[in-house]
């Protein structure tokens, strides 16, 4: 696919142009706390492509924490039900995605769109989305995408991909949609020297992992092997399960977690709404089935479910990639000490002992 060079000014112009026809989302920094959010850009000047990995996953845009999906009303007199869908399709551009978040979207695509059943709500959000990725020129504390092969540069699935090089950006096209945008921009084709420069940027980023990505020294491939072959002692799962306070955070911040719950709520005057909310395998009520049977009642069984989902080979086969994209967010938010990278450590310590 084509490759171009664009100046920072031209990248800004791209955002300005796209925002005329699309809702534009991108990384921005909350002034007071310094926390980074990937959210709607009410002001393009807030777009910060150098900002750290966003604190919340980008799935919020395609698969929000809570969403009204349907509204209906039952008329007593006529015994009629009227319904309307409560979500709308809006063209969006996700500007400056981190590669791990792109990989997360690919997992969600596979879950919501890639199998027998196609989820209309997700499709409505996803269909007209333009994905523009941004190579990580350095990792942050909690990153381990090098272990999950999801970064620091994206390799597929984007429409456009940006890499910051000396005097601007290398822009790579990843789809026809991306090509159509590029065709309108009049960017100069990239020179070989600029492609090499990107390689150097990526190499430098990878080399910086030991020094900068110091929170997590994951050991994913061996852990995958252990989990897939069932070579993990029950006591280890119990040790892990004992640390879970069942908050659900790990699922909520994980770019690939796709579980949800549907509930109908009554509003005033006979109107009802159908809400979809994110859900988590850490909750007891989530795994309970009809007739009082709960296949995963003890908390340790529910916990290992999560790690099977993220790391077992059979699951990876289903999603065409591992369920963990190495963003490290679950480590941030877990009140226990059992973010995925830590669990990998526990498995390793136990299995190498």
């Amino acid at each position, binding site marked *: 696919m084509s490759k171009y060079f664009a100046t920072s000014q031209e990248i800004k112009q791209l955002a300005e142009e796209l925002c005329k026809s699309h809702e534009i989302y991108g990384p921005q920094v909350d002034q007071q706390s310094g*926390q980074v959010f990937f959210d709607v850009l009410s002001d393009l000047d807030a777009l910060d492509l150098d900002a750290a990995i966003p604190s919340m996953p980008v799935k919020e845009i395609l698969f929000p924490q809570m969403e009204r999906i349907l509204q209906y009303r039952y008329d007593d007199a006529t015994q009629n039900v009227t319904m309307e869908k409560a979500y709308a399709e809006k063209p969006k551009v996700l500007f400056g995605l981190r590669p791990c978040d792109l990989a997360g979207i690919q997992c969600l695509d596979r879950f919501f769109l890639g199998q027998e059943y196609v989820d209309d709500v997700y499709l409505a959000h996803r269909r007209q989305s333009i994905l523009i990725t941004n190579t990580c020129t350095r990792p942050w504390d909690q990153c381990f995408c090098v272990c999950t092969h999801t970064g620091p540069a994206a390799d597929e699935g984007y429409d456009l991909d940006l890499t910051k090089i000396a005097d601007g950006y290398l822009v790579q096209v990843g789809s026809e949609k991306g090509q159509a945008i590029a065709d309108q921009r009049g960017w100069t084709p990239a020179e070989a020297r600029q492609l090499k420069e990107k390689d150097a940027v990526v190499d430098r980023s990878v080399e910086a992992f030991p020094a900068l990505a110091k929170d997590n020294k994951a050991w994913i491939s061996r852990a995958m092997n252990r989990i897939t072959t069932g070579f993990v002692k029950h006591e280890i799962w119990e040790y892990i399960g004992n640390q879970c306070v*069942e*908050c659900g*955070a790990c699922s909520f911040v994980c770019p690939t977690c796709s579980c949800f719950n549907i509930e109908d709520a009554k509003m005033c005057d006979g109107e009802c709404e159908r809400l979809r909310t994110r*859900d988590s395998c850490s909750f007891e009520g989530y795994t309970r089935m009809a007739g009082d049977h709960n296949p995963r009642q003890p908390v340790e069984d529910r916990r290992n479910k999560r790690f099977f989902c993220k790391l077992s080979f059979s699951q990876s086969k289903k999603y065409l990639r591992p369920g963990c994209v190495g963003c490290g967010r679950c480590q941030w938010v877990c009140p226990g000490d059992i973010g995925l990278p830590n669990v990998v450590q526990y498995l390793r310590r136990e299995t190498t002992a």
Partner: protein
Amino acid sequence: MNYKACVCNLCGTGCGQFLKTNGKAVLGVSPSIGHPVSKGKLCIRGWHVNELLNTNDRITTPMIRSNGKLRPASYDEAIDWVIERMRDFSGPSGEIGVLASARSSNEDNFALTRLARDIFKTDVLGVGAEAGHHNSMAALTHAFGYPGAIGTLTAIDKADYILVVGTDITRQNPVIGGNIHAAQMRGARVVTICSARTQIAKLSTKHYQQKPGTKGLLLNALAKALYAVRTMNHDRQANLDAIPGYADYIAALRSISSVALENASGIRYEEIEEEARYLNMAKSVVIVFSTGISGLDKQTTEIIANLALLTDKMDHEHSALIPVAGISNLQGTYDMGMTGKPGKSVFRSLADARSPLKALFVVDHDDGIIRNRDRIENLDFVVYCGAFKNPFMDLADVILPLTSFNQTDGTYTASDRRVQLTRQNTENLSNSLPGWNLYQLMAEKAGQYWGYCDAAHVFTDIAKRVPSYADLTHDRLGRGYGLHWDPKGFPTAGKKKFHAVRIEYPKPKTSEEFPFALMVGKAQHFWHQNNLMRKTLIPRREYDQTLLLYPQGYVEICPDDAKKLKVKDKWTVQVTCSAGTTMKIAVKVCPDMQPGTAYIPYFIKNMISDFLIKYDDAFSAGEESVIPVRIEEA
């Protein structure tokens, strides 16, 4: 950007969060990574506050009951009616009671105390969780000179030694529990004293599973051993001798007999001696215990305060003694004076059939179950103000809507005195009034002009009248993650005193006839009996799933006892207490219980209204209350 900084309003930890709002509705939640206490963590409640704030079960319009039916009214009309009716009752003779909420902001509670004092002229006040908190505050004031936490919650991250007394903290304040666990992982010694094997007990370096009712004895034994270690090492601190009450305290400790200790508590003194060596070696010590509705009894809190004093480490910057509150602004509510005077609570007036109480003014009641319902039904006049619908509405003559905590500016004081500001981040679509403004309008109607223009203005008045808040303003609080109020606001701060303690060896109240020691407390998803949690989706499902499994509630017993009783999980049993009341309830077999003990979470309605009615002290004694019962196959 749609993410607005906010403070979680669902327990006394005071975690930092962002609400994702489009200005009209709250769409989602994000934790606040930089918050010094929560550091990017939230519990299941905090993660689902968006569901609560989206509920359709809001009170949106004032209502007046006429001819038995509620009808919509304007604020003006409703306020008029309240003030006119309240004139019929005499506050000074105890006819008017005010039942406030420990979830309201400081501004709201401050204005409410003014309304109670200056307009209703009553001091029959109270909030739901007050009894326990009065005990904690009195114990701390006596020992350390001011009613509030010694040190701060962030000390947990640095302390050498952490003692958790009682509290099932990973359930009640999960983020504090998580911080304690993290401290254990980095090498701090975490010790839990609790008669059940709670999650934090499992995660501790050491768990003392004493017999129910002997926590205080065990803590005294630890103090004795600490004193002994010091004497042996000749590192007795001269300045400790100078603290009033020292000699009596030491004399009492000396009288503890190892044999009697072991008989009563089931713990050997040698173990305690070893523990004391660790405690002595630590440079910094954090002690946490729960305060409020399921808190400890007076005596146990005094024993804790004494032990903290005796360690002589409380002045270290990484030491702390924290009464952990289950409700967000319990500390602030106390600071504002809304908890009333000890011994004169609105609950007491309600419970006492001969009290002169005739009218009741209630704000944001959290409980789904209303105690003393019959009495309230027979009162002449009941006013309910609140953001969310509540069964109290059925008892009210006038209902006044309030804003929810994200629809107005307000400050909240967490368990460790951290005062934090939440700014309005969502439009107030139904034009509800914030509490302070509603009370101000009432005062105006009654002829008193307060002149507050916004919450920040109310706060300047707080700073003037509450000395420990003197140097705080909304502007200062809004710049970071809040500020701790200053103990120096109390002239006695730093004046230390030991409590007089009596050494008692609680005899098991159980007998052959009533062999189980029944404890009453919280369960995982039943915070505050759930009026709020019932308005969420996911936490409510978690609650319901327990109810589905155990529709009449459950009593937890250990597998061995279950075997002896020949019952299995979910089988119904009959529980009979020594006062004669009985209830049918399902068994939940739970390996974390000790033999001979039983546990019932107190969300079950008929338990509160019928079974426990004879045990009022079960509420005031909180965690330490033990009721002897017999359990039989039903």
